[in-house]
C-alpha cells in the first residue's frame, strides 16, 4: 500500500485530505467527528474580529441538481464564524491537544489595518495551531466590508496584508486566493512577494443560482430579497484546476506550495489537483453533501491509484502533469487525430451524428448502405472530440492518431516534425524557423 502521509509546509498529516475552512470546521464537535472519520487535517472556519459577525437565519445554501438530485453545484452566503472568538480559540486549542497527529490550520479574515492583524494573529498562534490561512477569497458579504475577495482582487492589498500577517506570525502563513479575478497569477505573485509560505485555491465564485419560478424573485431569498453567493462543488473543479496549473507552471510562482481546493468529491478529483501541482487538497462541499464518511474512498482510492502507478507516496504524484500544460501557441499543428466508432459497442443512438451534423463538421454518417449506422468520415473529421464527449457509452468512440500517410481531410502528408503556431505561415507574428 502506498503511504499517504503528507507533509505541507512541514505540517504532517496522515493523509493529504484536509477539510477546508467552511461550515464543517466551525466547531469542535464537527472537527472531532471529522478526525474520528479519518480526515488528515482541518482548516478552522474563518475567525474575524471580536465581537463576531452575525449570519442570516434564512437559507444560506442552494444547489444545482441532476434530475436524480445529485448535487452538481453548490452556493452559499454564509459569512465567517458567528461564534465568540474565545469560544473558537478554546476549542482549537483543545482539538490540537486531542489530535496531535492531524493538521490544524486556522483561517482568519481582518480589515486592511495593520494593528488589527498585530492584535489577533498572536492570539491564534497561541492555540497551538499549525498554520494560519488568510481568507482573501470569500466573495459575498464580507467583501462588501472590504475583506475577503475585496482584498484578494487587489494584488497590492494581498501583499500588504500578507506582510502584516507574516510580521505577527511565527507559524507558516497560507494565502487563500479568490477565483473572481481575470488572471490568478498577479494575486499569487503578490502573496509570494508578501512572504506567503503557500497559497490555497480556489475560494468560491460569485454566483446567483436561479430565480424562483413562482414568484420570479431570485432564489434562494431572505424575506423576498437575495444576494449573490459563492459557487462551489463539482461544477467548479475545472476552473480551480486551471488556476492551480497556472501557478504551478509559471516560473515566478512555481515554487510556491499549493493547497488545492475546488469541487473535490472523490479520489480522482484529488489526483487531478495533485498531478497539476497541488501538494495537498482541501474539501468542503462533498462533505457537506455526503458527510465525513467520504474520506474512506478518498484515501483508499488514492492509495490504490498510487499502487497501480507504482508510486510510493503522494509526493511522487505531485506536479506530474504540470509539464503537459502549455499555451495554445505551442500545440503541435502537425498532429492529426480522427475519431473512431467501435461498432460493437455502438448502441446507435445517433447523438454523435446529430451534434456533428448540426454544430460541427458533418463528419459522421447516419445511414450506410441503407442501414442505420454511424461511421466517421475521415475526409471531414477534424478530430475535435465532440462525438467522444457526447457519446453515452464510455469507450465507444475513441480518438486515434494518424501516424503516417496523409490526412484525408486536408490532403497533406502526416509529418513527424512538430510545428506550432509560432512558426505557422498564417501567423503574422511568426518567428522564423
Amino acid at each position, binding site marked *: 500500500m502506498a503511504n499517504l502521509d503528507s507533509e505541507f509546509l512541514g505540517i504532517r498529516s496522515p493523509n493529504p485530505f484536509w477539510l477546508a475552512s467552511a461550515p464543517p470546521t466551525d466547531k469542535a464537535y464537527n472537527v472531532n467527528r471529522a478526525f474520528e472519520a479519518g480526515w488528515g487535517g482541518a482548516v478552522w472556519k474563518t475567525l474575524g474580529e471580536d465581537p463576531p459577525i452575525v449570519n442570516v437565519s434564512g437559507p444560506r445554501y442552494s444547489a444545482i441538481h*441532476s434530475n*436524480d438530485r445529485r448535487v452538481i453545484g453548490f452556493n452559499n452566503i454564509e459569512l465567517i464564524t458567528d461564534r465568540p472568538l474565545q469560544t473558537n480559540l478554546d476549542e482549537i486549542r483543545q482539538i490540537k491537544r486531542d489530535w496531535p497527529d492531524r493538521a490544524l490550520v486556522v483561517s482568519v479574515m481582518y480589515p486592511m489595518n495593520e494593528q488589527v492583524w498585530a492584535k489577533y494573529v498572536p492570539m491564534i498562534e497561541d492555540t497551538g495551531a499549525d498554520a494560519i490561512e488568510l481568507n482573501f477569497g470569500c466573495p459575498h458579504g464580507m467583501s462588501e466590508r472590504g475583506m475577503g475577495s475585496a482584498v484578494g482582487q487587489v494584488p497590492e492589498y494581498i501583499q500588504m496584508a500578507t506582510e502584516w500577517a507574516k510580521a505577527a506570525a511565527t507559524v507558516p502563513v497560507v494565502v487563500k486566493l479568490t477565483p473572481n479575478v481575470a488572471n490568478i497569477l498577479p494575486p499569487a505573485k503578490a502573496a509570494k512577494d508578501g512572504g506567503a509560505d503557500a497559497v490555497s485555491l480556489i475560494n468560491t465564485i460569485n454566483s446567483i443560482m436561479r430565480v424562483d419560478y413562482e414568484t420570479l424573485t431570485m432564489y434562494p431569498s431572505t424575506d423576498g430579497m437575495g444576494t449573490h453567493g459563492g459557487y462551489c462543488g463539482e461544477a467548479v473543479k475545472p476552473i480551480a484546476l486551471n488556476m492551480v496549473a497556472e501557478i504551478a507552471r509559471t516560473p515566478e510562482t512555481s515554487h510556491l506550495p499549493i493547497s488545492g481546493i475546488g469541487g473535490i468529491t472523490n479520489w480522482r478529483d484529488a489526483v487531478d489537483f495533485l498531478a497539476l501541482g497541488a501538494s495537498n487538497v482541501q474539501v468542503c462541499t462533498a462533505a457537506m453533501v455526503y458527510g465525513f464518511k467520504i474520506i474512506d474512498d478518498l484515501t483508499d482510492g488514492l492509495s490504490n491509484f498510487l499502487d497501480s502507478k507504482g508510486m510510493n507516496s503522494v509526493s511522487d504524484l505531485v506536479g506530474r502533469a504540470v509539464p503537459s500544460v502549455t499555451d495554445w501557441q505551442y500545440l503541435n499543428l502537425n498532429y492529426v487525430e480522427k475519431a473512431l466508432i467501435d461498432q460493437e459497442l455502438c448502441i446507435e*443512438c445517433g*447523438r454523435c451524428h446529430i451534434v456533428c451534423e448540426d454544430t460541427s463538421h458533418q463528419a459522421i454518417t447516419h445511414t450506410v448502405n441503407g442501414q442505420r449506422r454511424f461511421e466517421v468520415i475521415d475526409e471531414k473529421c477534424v478530430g475535435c472530440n465532440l462525438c467522444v464527449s457526447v457519446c453515452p457509452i464510455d469507450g465507444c468512440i475513441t480518438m486515434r492518431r494518424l501516424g503516417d500517410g496523409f490526412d484525408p481531410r486536408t490532403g497533406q502528408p502526416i509529418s513527424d516534425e512538430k510545428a506550432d503556431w509560432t512558426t505557422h505561415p498564417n501567423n503574422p507574428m511568426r518567428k522564423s524557423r
Partner: protein
Amino acid sequence: MTDIRPNRLSRDEIARNFSDLHPPLSHSEAIVEADRCYFCFDAPCTTACPTGIDIPGFIQKIRSGNLRGSAHTILSENIMGGMCARVCPTEVLCEEACVRNTHEEKPVEIGLLQRYATDPVLNDHTQLFSRQAASGFRVAVVGGGPAGLSCAHRLAMLGSAVTLFDRDEKLGGLNEYGIAAYKTVDNFAQREVDYILSIGGIEVRTGVTLGKDISISRLRDEFDAVFVGVGLAAVNVLGIEGEDLPGVENAVEYIADLRQATDKGELPVGRRVVVIGGGMTAIDVAVQSKRLGAERVDIVYRRTSDQMGASDFEKNLAQSNGVTIHTLARPLKILGPGHASGVLFERTAAGEDGSISDTGETFTLDADVVFKAIGQQLRDGVLEDGSIRMQNGKIVVDEGQSTSLAGVWAGGDCVVGGDDLTVTAVQHGKVAAIAIDHYLRTREEGYG
C-alpha cells in the same frame, strides 16, 4: 359437477386484483427515468411507434418540467396517448426499439412516462387543441372506438362538422368494452372519450347500428365523407361439437361484462376455466378469471408459443398469475353432457414452415367454463355486399385509409392492416382525417 359462481373472493381481494396493473410514476421516479433517455437522433422508438410520437421530445419536456408541452407532443400525434400509455404492448413497439436495450436490456419506461405526461391533462381537463375555422364540410364517422374517435377529433381540429355514430351506449369501443379492467382503472376510457369530445364540433349519436339503422349509401348521400371504424364485432366460431353447450362463452363478451360490472365479484366465474386462443383476448380473459378466483385456468393454443398473438409480457403476466399455457394443441370437442365439462384436445406438431399437423395424440382438460378467444370478424350486413373491396373479410384501404368506394375511408381492426392495437387504430383515424380534409378541400377548389 359444474362449479360456476360469483364472489369466489372477498371484496378486498377483488379490489386488489383489479387495481392498476402499472401504478403511475411519482414525480421523482419520472424525472429519474426521463434522465435515462438518450435523446436519440431519428429515434428508433419514434420509428417503432405506429403513431410516430416524438418520444425523445416528450421525455425531454418531462425532464425540464414542461409537462403541458410534453402532453401536447404526445397527444398531437396520438389523441389516445393516455390509453396507449396503459395498453400498448410497448415491449414490442417503442421500448423494444430503445437503444438502452443494447447493453443493459432495460429500456426507458416510455409507456409509464407517457402516462405521467398525459394524466394531468386528462385529470385537469386542460384543452390543448383548438379548431380551425369551420370548413363547412360534414363528415360521418361510424364507430366510436379508437379509430373513429381519433378520426373525429382530427377532423374537428381541421374544421369539419362531425357526426359520430356508435351502436353501443358508451363510446370508446374496445377501450371501454374490451380491455382488461386492471389495465384501465378509474373509468379512464370514458374520461378520455370526454376529453376527446371536449374539442367541440362532434355530434354523438349512440345506439345506432350500421347496416340496421344507417347504411353506407345513405351516409354518402347525407355527408361529404364517411369514415368506417366499426371494428370486428362478430366472434369467430370453432366449428366443433359441443360449441353450443351452456358454459361455452365468447371471451370478448365476458371481458365486456366484467368492464361494465359495478361489482366485479358478482360476475359468475368457473372453478376450472379453459381458454382457447393465443392472443391478447385469451390472456385478458384468462388472467381476469384467475383474479376473480378461478382455481385453475388453462390457455390452449394450437400453434407454437412464438406464433401467439400475445406478447412475451402478456404471456409472462398470465404465467405469473398462475395461468397455464399449453401450445400445440387444438380442440376436437367440447364435452358435456348438458353443460360444458371439459375439452378434448389433439396435440399438434409444428412444421418448419409454421404450419401445424395433427399427431393423433389426445388429452382432456376439465372445465366449468370454456372461453373462445379465437378472433373476431366483421359483422354480417354491415357493408352492402360488393360495394367495397374486401380481402379476407376485411376492408381494403390505401395509404390514406381510402376504400375502393369514393368518399368512404376506413380504419382500425376492420381494415386490412388493422392489428388489434389501439395505437394502430388511432393512427388510421388520424391519417384518414387528414386525407378526408385534403380531399374535400381540393375537391372544393376544383382540383379533385
